[in-house]
Every structure is written in C-alpha cells, then in structure tokens.
C-alpha cells in the first residue's frame, strides 16, 4: 500500500516537472504555431547554467532564476534571427529547431562534459519529509510538487485573469483577427516564447537536482513533454496540466510494475488516444 502511494507521489512530482516544460511548449505552439523541438535543449542548457551559478555563488534561487534568465536571451536570439524566418513552414521549422537543439547540446557537451552531473538541492530541501500516514518521502520532490502547483496557479491566473492572458487566448483562437485589431502579435509571441524559455530553463535546474543532467537528456525529457502536450491537446494550458499529471503517474507506475516496457506504457496509450481523438483530449485542429 505504501509503495502505491509512494509511486503516486513520484508520478505527481514528475508531472510537476513536466508541466513546467510542457506549458511553455504548448503556449508557444498555440500562439505562434511554432513547434519548438529545441525546448528540450533549453531545459538542458538552463540546468547546466544553473549548476554553474550554484557552484560559483551557492544560492539555489539565484541558480533557478539565473538558468531561466539565460535561456530567455538564447530563445530571443533563436526567435528573432532564425525561427521567425520560417513562419508557416512547419516542416522547415521542425528541422530548424532540431538544428538549434544540436548546436546547443554540443555547446553544453563542450562546456560541461559528458558525465552526468547532479545539481545539489538547497539546504532546506535536503533529507526526507514525514507525511501524514507515516509515509517518508524525499523533501526535494515534495517541494517540487508544491512549486509546480504554484507555477500552475500563477500561469492560470495570468492566462485567465489578465489583459496579457486575454490577448494570448485571443491569439491562440484567431491570430489574424488579433493582428487586425492593431496588436503586435510578433511582440506578443516573443513575450510568450521568452516566458516558455524561462520556464524551460527553470525546469532544467529543478529537474537537474533529481534526474541529473547528461548529454541526451534534452531528447529524453522532450519526448515526455511531447506526450503531455499531445495527450492534453496542443495549445491548451489546462490540457498541459492534466496531461502532465497523467503522464507522470503512468510513467511512475510503469517503471514500477513493468520496468522493461515503461516507455511503452507511456507512449502506447498516447498513440491509442490519438487514433480515437486525433487532436488530444482538449486540442483544436492544428
């Protein structure tokens, strides 16, 4: 019984991490129709930058936000000079972002080397925590769940209660109309893309503390984020929330019950879902 609850916690904390990554991906797609396969590389680079900041300054929060901030700059350059030039050309865009991911991953390899690196969690998040019901759980992963919930709450408020969120929602629904109303959609998109990149960088730092950072991690985590986005439906923030919870839980129980086929446990149901609902649970026509 305890194992079942532990796996549930593992699943939810993984889901929290996936949400940080997938929410940005899904909004980027919803607003700009940009399929950014470099999102995983943003995660990895953010994690590595955070690690370096942590080693030099010793401040975890500085590392968390520093990793995100650096990725904002990287993403701005990518958007302004590369991705924007392939608008409405999905095939080209996908290959372009793969190219960006290759370049970023190689830079990471050259700077931080090929061995898996682990970000040490901050003082306040070390050791176990006693949860009600006599369950002992790593404190870091428990705090990650709370962090994920906070970010989800803030994003949700931003999305549903602010003018900016209203603009983004309008842009997701009908980009041309928003453009015609005199709103600079390119600038709006740059803002959303920056936010997405920031979240990717932050999730790299957060994930680096329990998944470790290594060359290839960018594709491993991106594959999971894609499943989240596909299950939830591209462009849907609520879909990303539910999707990351489902994928995190399925993954945790899959690893526990069928370790050899855990990948299949995650990707198989997703493929079946897409056959029934080609646009995911909450998606719209692409």
């Amino acid at each position, binding site marked *: 019984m305890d194992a079942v609850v532990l796996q549930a916690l593992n699943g939810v904390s993984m889901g929290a991490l996936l949400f940080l990554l997938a929410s940005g991906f899904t909004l980027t797609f919803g607003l700009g129709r940009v399929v950014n396969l470099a999102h995983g590389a943003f995660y990895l680079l953010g994690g590595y930058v955070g690690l370096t900041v942590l080693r030099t300054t010793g401040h975890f929060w500085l590392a968390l936000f520093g990793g995100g901030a650096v990725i904002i700059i990287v993403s701005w350059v990518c958007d302004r000079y590369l991705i924007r030039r*392939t608008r409405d050309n*999905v*095939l080209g865009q996908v*290959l372009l972002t793969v190219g960006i991911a290759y370049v970023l991953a190689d830079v990471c390899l050259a700077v931080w080397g090929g061995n898996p690196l682990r970000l040490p969690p901050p003082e306040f998040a070390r050791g176990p925590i006693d949860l009600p019901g006599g369950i002992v759980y790593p404190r870091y992963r428990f705090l990650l769940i709370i962090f994920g919930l906070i970010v989800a709450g803030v994003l949700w408020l931003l999305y549903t209660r602010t003018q900016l969120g209203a603009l983004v929602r309008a842009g997701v629904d009908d980009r041309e109309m928003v453009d015609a109303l005199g709103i600079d959609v390119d600038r709006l998109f740059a803002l959303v893309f920056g936010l997405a990149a920031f979240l990717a960088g932050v999730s790299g730092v957060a994930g680096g503390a329990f998944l470790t950072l290594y060359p290839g991690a960018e594709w491993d985590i991106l594959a999971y984020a*894609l499943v989240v986005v596909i299950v939830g439906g591209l462009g849907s923030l609520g879909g990303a929330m539910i999707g990351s919870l489902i994928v995190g839980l399925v993954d945790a129980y899959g690893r526990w019950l069928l370790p050899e086929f855990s990948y299949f446990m995650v990707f198989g149901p997703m*493929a079946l879902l897409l056959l029934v609902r080609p646009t995911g649970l909450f998606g719209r026509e692409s």
Partner: protein
Amino acid sequence: MTRVAVGIAAGLALAAPLVLDTFWISLVTQMLIFGLLALGVDLLTGHTGILPMGHAGFFAVAAYATAILDARHGQGFWLSAGGGVLAALLLAVVFGFSVRTGGVYFILLTLALGHIVWGVAMRWTTFTGGENGVSNVPPPVIAGVRFAELSRYYYLVLGVVIACALGYRVLVRSPFGLALRGIRESEMRMRGLGYHVFAHKYCAFVLSAFLAGVAGVLYAYWNRFVSPAAATFHASAEAVLVGILGGSGTILGPFVGAAIILGIRNWLSGYVGWWTAIMGGVFIVTVLWAPHGLIGLLRQASAQVTAGGGALTTAGDRAVPDAHESSAAGKPRP
C-alpha cells in the same frame, strides 16, 4: 542533365571498389544504406507532404530482427533478411494509423512512436541486449557465395539499392504516385475528387517503412552489430534532413544528401569534436537558404544558364516543388 548525372553516378558506383581502399568502400556502402532510408522517408516528405520523425524505428526493428535471427538463431540470409523486412512491415501496419492525424500532430506522434522503439531496444535487455546491442552478425551467404569482404558486400548493397530505386521510380510515376503529390498539394481537393486520402497515405507510409526496413537489413550485415543507436531520434531527424539537403522529391537527392552528411561527419570527426554542432548548422542552413536542396540549386543554376541569366524568378518556379510551403498551404482554414 538528369540522365548524364545518373550515368556518371552509376559509373562511379560500379568502379568504386576498384579504386578505393577499405575505409572509403565502407563509407560509400554506409552512404548507400543511409540514402535508401532517406529515400523511403522522402516518399512521405517529398511526395506526400507529411513529415515522419520516427523512421529510424523501422530501420532499427529490421536491423534487430535480422541480427537476432542470424547471429543468435543461425537462420541464414534469406530467412533473416526476410524476417527483418517483415518485422518493419508489421510495425508499419500498426504505426501507419498515425497518418489519421495531420500536420504537427503527425510529426509529434511519429516522433513519440520512434521513441518507443528506441526505449524497447534500450530497456528490453533480455531480448535486445540493451546498450550492448546484438553483435557477431555473420556475413550474408547467398546461394553459396559468402559476402565476407567489404568490396563484395558493397556490390550486394549497390544491387539492392538500384533495384529499390528503380521500383521507386515506377511507383512515383504511377497513378498512385501522382495521387500522393495531389494530396501534398491539397488534401481537401483530392478528397473532393473522390480519392481515399487515408488509404493513399497509409500505403505510402507502409511502403516508406518497407524501404527503411530494407535499409535496416543492409545495415545489420554492414555493421555486423546493432545497438539502440540505430533507433535514436537523431537518426530519424537526419534521415529527413538528408532527403531535403539533397533534393526533396527526387531519387538521386537522398543519396547525394547522405553522401554529404556522412562525408562531413567522417571528415570532420577526425579533426574537430564539434561535428554535432556542425550538423546542427547544416540543418539550419539547409532550411533557411537551401530549402530545395542541392539538386534544386543545381536546377536553378542550369535554368539560369539556359535562360541567359536574369531569370531568377522563373527559375525558382521551376525548382523542385516545395514540400514546405504546400504542407502549410494544403490545410485551408476551416
């Protein structure tokens, strides 16, 4: 021009083992195998206008099946190779339903499906050997002839590739191939004309997986070793890039692209450790500045010459039809 190019290519290919040393024969064999995979992928990207990001999965499944049948169970060439191609086909029959989804969903779905194959190859250690892979694949023996030396195996690969390319040529010029290009240009219109769009896409998907499977079998006997590296996302993405780099929608293009990519990699990896970044650069440059590929650039240049220069705009129209623009334009807003 195309005939001359094909003639030169055929001459070079036949003479290659006579003048090249083992390293280069091995590299050229690899180019042919990877080019065949890219040719299969290009049936979808170049002709049908959909972008599969998981075709290394079929390639790897065929390679694994062949390697396991031959190395572990000693089934001989015909059974192992046939089993490999059959495995890829069976997988494609299942994964083929992904063509029900369109646009971005198809790209992401095939990416995830390809990842399943990689994950199984990696984790199902009792069957696939995990990261150690399947080694000691014996050289193929066909009708008593052992293809042990590389130069001899090269001719086997060349023969298979030429047969596949000729079949491919017939296929893309058939009414079926024309219907695929119709779907690329406008799926709605083809549906309106009464074509069964799903059936066409599904068949194209299975056929392209068949070519990937044949390439996988050739790869297993060339490398004598199969590991999860064959199924990575990198291999899938590069197979797409190779087709576009050479010239999407052509038969020679994927092989030209494979030659360039593998050439760059083998040449550079001897000098600098940056080849992944350089590969990324090739991706970026191809998409931004050469979306029609090298064959497109050549055609553009030759059209300019014949038109007496100054015909840049018309030459652009004559270049290879662009899978990129049409994939976006093919989906009118509802």
